[in-house]
């Protein structure tokens, strides 16, 4: 029962951060700020859910189940790379490959509705 509560807590906590990440993604004003959002989902969000899962399966049929940590490890290794590449892509898309200078014109063009 106690475990249930703990698991539930982790789950809610994790889900909140996942949701928050997506809220950020949807709401934040430009690509660079949006890049921050998934980081939260990845780290604390999915992390907590993984912990919840570990608890559930370690207490179920004897034997501990920690392989979820592998997912965490993997996400921690890869998330920065994705973010870095996406940032570079975004910079590239702004036509300015050195350092960014936001141009509204560029955004407006990209915002143009599809045919």
């Amino acid at each position, binding site marked *: 029962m106690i475990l249930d509560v703990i698991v539930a807590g982790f789950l809610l906590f994790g889900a909140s951060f996942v949701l928050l990440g997506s809220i950020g993604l949807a709401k934040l004003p430009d690509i660079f700020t949006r890049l921050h959002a998934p980081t939260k989902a990845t780290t604390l969000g999915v992390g907590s859910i993984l912990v919840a899962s570990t608890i559930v399966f370690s207490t179920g049929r004897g034997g501990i189940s920690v392989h979820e940590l*592998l997912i965490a*490890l993997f996400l921690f*290794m*890869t998330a920065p790379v994705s973010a*870095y*590449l996406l940032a*570079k892509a975004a910079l*590239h*898309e702004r036509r300015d490959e050195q350092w960014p200078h936001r141009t509204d014109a560029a955004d407006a063009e990209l915002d143009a509705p599809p*045919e």
Partner: protein
Amino acid sequence: MSVLLVPLLPLLLGWIPLVLGRRGHVTTAWSAGLVAAASFAILLGVHAPAVFAGEVAFAWVRWAPSLGLDLAFRMDGLAFLFCLLVLGIGLLVILYAYFYLGDTKYHARFYAFLLVFMGAMLGVVTSEHMIGLVVFWEITSVSSFLLVGFNNDTEAARRGARRALGVTGLGGLCLLGGVIVIGHLVDSFELSVWIAQRSVIVANAWYPAGLVLILLGAFTKSAQMPFHFWLPGAMSAPTPASAYLHSATMVKAGVFLLVRLSPALGDTSLWFFIVVPVGLVTMMVAAYIAMFQHDIKGLLAYSTISHLGLITALFGISEPLAIVAGLLHIINHATFKASLFMAAGIVDHEVHTRDLRELGGLRRLMPVTTVLASIAAAAMAGVPLLNGFLSKEMAFQETLGLSRLGEMQWVAPFVVTLGGIFSVAYSLRFAWEAFFAEPKVQREHPPHDPPRWMQAPVFVLVGLCVVVGVMPAVAVGGLLEVVATSVLGDRMPEYHLAIYHGVNTALFMSIMAFAVGGLIFSWRRRVLDWQGGGILEPTAANAYHNFFGRVIRIGRVVTHQLHDHSLSRYSAVLFSLLLVVGSSPFWPHEARDALVLRTTTALQAAPVAFCSLLAFGAIATLVFHRRRIWALLFMGVSGLASALLFADYSAPDLALTQISVEFGTTVLILLALYYLPWKTPREPRAPARTMHAVIAVLCGTGIAALTYGVLTRPLESISDFYVATSKTHGGGTNIVNVILVDYRGTDTLGEITVLAIAALSITGMLSGFRARRPTVDSAGRAWSPDTHPHLLAVMARPLLSLVLLVAVFVLLRGHNLPGGGFIAALMTAVALILQFLANGYGFARARLRFDFVKVVAIGLALALFTGLGSLLFGQPFLTSNYGYFPIPLVGDVELATAMLFDLGVYLTVVGVIMIMAIRLGRIGGVEDAEPEPELVPAPAEPGEAG
């Protein structure tokens, strides 16, 4: 048995002249003559006595009796008569041809064709089995095609040959049909049975159909109107062929068929009212047209048509005496017409023209030919004391008093007399204008009579005309008796052959014919100027020509319209067909009532969300499909949604596979998209968007209905078996994996083969292929200069080991838990592809220097040999084996052949994915032969370690 030798000798030895072709013309002509003579000798030596003794000989060649196909031969009077004509005239033609062809280049071919034709014709006339008859019948068409087209450097010859083949071929088809129809009515194709079962045949409702088909065969072959037009066209054949085929033999096949089948099919109203009118009209109209022919062969051709019409009409009348008359006319016509053709050939040969408007005055230059031709022409006109007179008189007599015509009885004699009038006219014109009229053209090299031996055949034939004409009873009485008896049996009438039968209507008709015919001849200038012949002549030929013109035009239009190779058109057809045919079981009302839905489950949040995600992705892909990268992303959403649905609905292995494949597809498309346009432009010509939308919506509705229909009924499947045996007999707890590597291992073997072939084909498609790299992206921006982003380059290194480790894990435990060779292989490939992505093609390829084609082959071989291994133990292919092996410290380790199989799968899939990725990655012009700084030993596959 010797019956079959008669036709088969020439047919099967037809190649001899070809083989001897290089030895010179004499040799080939002799060889052909000897073959024909051998056959003739058998006919006369063996069969003549028997036939004259009233016996009928049979012979069978069993071809395919269980299919109803046989060759059966009979030698009775009728067959004997025709054999006599075919072989006798055939021999004369060979002799004649030797002189006529002279030093023509392809003489050997001519004799070969002639022998084949001769054999086939003999086959037709001796056939007892009607299918056999059709077989020979068609061979005569083909060999006639070859003979008519012998001088194929002229368009006329080619067209004439094609027409002859087309029309007689059509007849052959109809004949085949008719034979099958009648054969089915009496359950036999044997002529004897047909004759015996006549009453059964004519009473059947299908008799008319069968009869009409057979008559079409006869009419086309015997050039009856409106199918006559091929015969004048066939006059472009070398004259020996015309003399043979188009006077004496092939064209007689049609009337032969009529008389042959008249005991079985004849003497009914239907028979009468089809055959008689066709014959009479043909007789009259062809004779009319013949008057206007300037080409002497053309004139003879129409004359032939006309005489065949008369014979046809006589056989249509079916009275015993009419048949006798017809038979006699066949003999007579063969003799005088063959000799006329030969004479025409001699004229052509010597004068180099066949145009009556240019001929004339040959009487002095070629006296012998003139005499012979004139006698033959007189026979053609029906002059007394010549054979033509005899049969014509009999024929005229038989057209009188046809009770079937009722009030219209006068029509037949009237028409026949008209025909007779025209015959007289054209015969006169032929003889007069060619030989007796004043020469119209002065010639530098005056023609002269040909060598004696070239005239010999004509002489023989004309001699026959005279002999028969003068003493018919002696000359042909016996033969005619035998022949007629073989046709008429106990209907054999009383008749006697005589030169003069006293004053009767027929004589009156003959006199009319001579009088009016002579009148027309004397008015020929005016008649010819009137050019009336042109009215009727070309109609049928034009119709035929136009018909084929139209067929080809329609063919072009239809083919061009249909086969535009537009995928969207073809798919639209396919989908429409699916909708129509697929829905057809539900058209009856009861079927729709039967669709009672039985089980449904409540909505659940997660699957509803996943389904929505799925549909969202699809719709977005559709909406944004012109922006290709966007579309790719949206498709990824659908792919993910699929995987989630699989996961949610108890299919972990599927979820894994779906994700992997989804990824693989994306990477492949990205690799290719680099060289493709990044946007799909709008088409200038909107290709039926609305229609496509309707088809799409209907297809979607259809598959949704199908899904709903299936899901809402109970399922009783074979799955319990797998639950019961997967662990105990298959050695694994992951049932899906056990199915893949064991129960349905053959599927998997096939599946990896498909992958391997795809890789091989892609290798083939991309071998040596280089595409120019686009220097700017779709928005016109230059590419980022950073080829290998740092963070990715560095992190890819530890990730490689990590992912490979997981791949090994997934491979090893697939038999018991989700995973297996395929997913492990994809993980491995992902790890390797990541190296290409992160550090570039050159870097990664230098470190992965093996030929993945070999990896694929090894994988396939491993899987295959695992399957074959069980054969060594007397078990069927792919019988699995597993066991637990105690290993110190470790405990029992499960080893299963299925794992070996899965390893084969693993290797194959790794190889395939890498081949594809590497091939695609190399397109951009990265030189493969990039100098390698050091030769790194090829790292072995990590999977092999497991």
